[in-house]
């Protein structure tokens, strides 16, 4: 009982929601990428690898350029290039998209540590000074609003970017012609093709977008929240993002709500001194919740109809 009331008190503190939102955004960016990619019909379980690559190149670039903005851009390009490999292999060569995704993740784990050993000695990449990290941004006046100001307007710059992107992706997918086409390609590529839509071009674009977004998330992790790169630092976040995408039924806002739930769980754990549950048990929660959703306990979650099927014109 006291545990519940203590959590209740915790839920009334702005700091908790502040932390929850930041944690959610880290997952939201790759989750949005996953939504775009899978809506176009390309299964993407490679967000983990794209994020990890982005994190590495963000730090590597920042150590040379001393500019977090350019470094975030480099991270996006790195994530985008990884996505391009996934796209070429699964669209051009019509490979199994799950094998390709697994390969991307293994490749990212291997190549980042390989490059560290090659260029930075054994394990330590080096740490960045605070002035070279992605900054927190206080929005003038708005940050003075009680409670909401702390939660919404004293965040890292990437949090604002991500929330704007959330809106943009939603509008893009459900309110524009381009979005309609992306969804058509993911549901029924033959029909879309017949209607004159270029299936391949849209799928390439969608997959590469997922890499750009995942790369940005990697940058947020490495040069926003942290100040260095350590091997495998994404630690399954790309997969939690995948879970959020499914949990949110392949919609941007659904994914965001899932990310918030996962982020809130993390924040409650980090900020309380009452619950003596092992953090490791808590870490299982996102995955268990997603299994429950998949089991159909909380409504069915159905992927786009052509998700995972390579498009080969003229074979049917």
């Amino acid at each position, binding site marked *: 009982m006291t545990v519940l009331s203590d959590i209740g008190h915790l839920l009334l503190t702005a700091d908790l929601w502040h932390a929850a939102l930041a944690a959610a955004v880290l997952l939201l960016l790759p989750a949005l990428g996953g939504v775009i990619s899978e809506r176009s019909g390309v299964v993407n379980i490679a967000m983990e690898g794209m994020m990890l690559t982005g994190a590495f190149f963000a730090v590597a670039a920042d150590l040379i350029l001393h500019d977090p903005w350019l470094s975030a851009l480099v991270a996006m390009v790195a994530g985008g290039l990884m996505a391009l490999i996934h796209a070429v292999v699964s669209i051009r*060569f019509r490979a199994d998209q799950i094998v390709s995704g697994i390969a991307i993740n293994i490749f990212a784990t291997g190549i980042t540590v390989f490059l560290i050993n090659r260029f930075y000695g054994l394990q330590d990449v080096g740490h960045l000074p605070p002035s070279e990290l992605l900054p927190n941004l206080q929005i003038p006046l708005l940050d003075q609003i009680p409670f909401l100001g702390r939660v919404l307007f004293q965040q890292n710059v990437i949090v604002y970017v991500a929330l704007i992107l959330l809106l943009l992706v939603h509008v893009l997918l459900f309110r524009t012609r381009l979005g309609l086409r992306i969804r058509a390609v993911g549901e029924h590529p033959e029909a879309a093709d017949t209607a004159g839509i270029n299936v391949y071009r849209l799928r390439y674009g969608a997959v590469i977008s997922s890499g750009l977004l995942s790369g940005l998330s990697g940058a947020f992790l490495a040069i926003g929240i942290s100040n260095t790169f350590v091997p495998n630092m994404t630690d399954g976040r790309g997969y939690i993002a995948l879970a959020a995408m499914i949990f949110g039924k392949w919609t941007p806002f659904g994914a965001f709500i899932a990310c918030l739930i996962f982020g809130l769980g993390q924040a409650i754990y980090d900020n309380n001194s009452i619950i003596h549950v092992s953090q490791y048990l808590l870490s299982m929660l996102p995955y268990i919740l997603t299994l429950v959703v998949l089991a159909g306990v909380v409504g069915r979650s159905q992927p786009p109809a052509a998700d995972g099927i390579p498009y080969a014109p003229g074979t049917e």
Partner: protein
Amino acid sequence: MAASSTAAAGRPAPPLAASLRRAGRAVAVPAGSVVFAFLMGAVIVAVTGGNPFAAYQALICGGFGLLCSGGENAGLQVSNTIVFLTPLIMAGVAVALPFRAGLFNIGAEGQLIVGAIACTTVGIHFAAAPAPVLLPAVLLAGMAAGAAWAGIVGVLKALTGAHEVVTTIMLNYIAQWLLRFLIIGGPLQLHNGFSVSSPIGAGAHLSTLLPHDDKLIVFGLPASVYRVHVGLLIALLAAGTYAFLLWRSSFGYEVRAVGQSQKAARYAGMSVRRTIILTMLISGAFAGLAGAVQIAAVDHNLTDKYFSDTTGFDAIAVALLGLGTATGIVFAAILFGALHGGGAVMQSDAGISGNLVYVLQALILFSIAANFLRTLKLRLPAVGRAAGTPAAEAPAGALAGESATALADDEGLA
């Protein structure tokens, strides 16, 4: 496909030549993938300022004990490779069997972890039990745990159509966090501050193949340094069991039928759901056995080494490269066992990160999945492009097809 092309040519080839040609074609794709991966890997090493020849020389030394320049003992390197490849065979089977039913088990890692956990738990709790009882008990516990873990996937797939790729990913992470919970501050932890479990009882130890004798000299070293263990025989037995199940049992027939076409299997009176669940249970048992053998023969307790274990993911490459056949899996496991054995030597002798091994593995996966060679050949105008969907031949291709919708039909019939 080979048969139809010879028939079209109008002159029947002698059976031996035809079967040799067929075998050659079967091996061409995986062999080509490996060559492609090593060429790309060499480019990556060269571009980053390393010497690819030195890197691969060290890799071959570490993997097979050949071409060594750093005074490595050949026998010891081969022994290490065998220790690496032993769990890969069992986990490879755990991935290959579901492939045959059109299911993609990327959860072998999680199933292996819970297998190791169950084996350790039983091995600790009944540490005093005699070996004839305890050893089978820990191995069976591992198999049961792996089967249960994969069984969840099978049941969810059969009843709700939940995609096995997603559920296995979730269960992999749940297993990983469970492992951390158990040995970091949890019930299996040996001492505070160390992320290791208590050791299993001596009766649960799976012995090494060579006697534990310092006086017996084998390949210039005392026999006790070689870690090759009885698990190798268990792994080969597992591969044999897989081949038998698949080709000689009615269950295997159903598995293959379901993998080819769920609809056809249903019309033939088979229960698709039952086959899916049974396939996952057996698959999980193989992966759980891999984890249990690793504990019983090599580690004797759970350690933080298992946090970054990748056997279950390597097994995907093993199953694909081995084209889903028992023989192929054994050969592919030898390759990946050698890569992992060689990684350490590559680091020490050539100064190239052992993580290059993962890069090579990813490249092999890319090329075998994309089947670069064949796809490119299809583009040549002389061959034409009328050759069906590229995915149809690879075992993995089956998973894209019928899933939830087909199962819904099943519901209607039942």
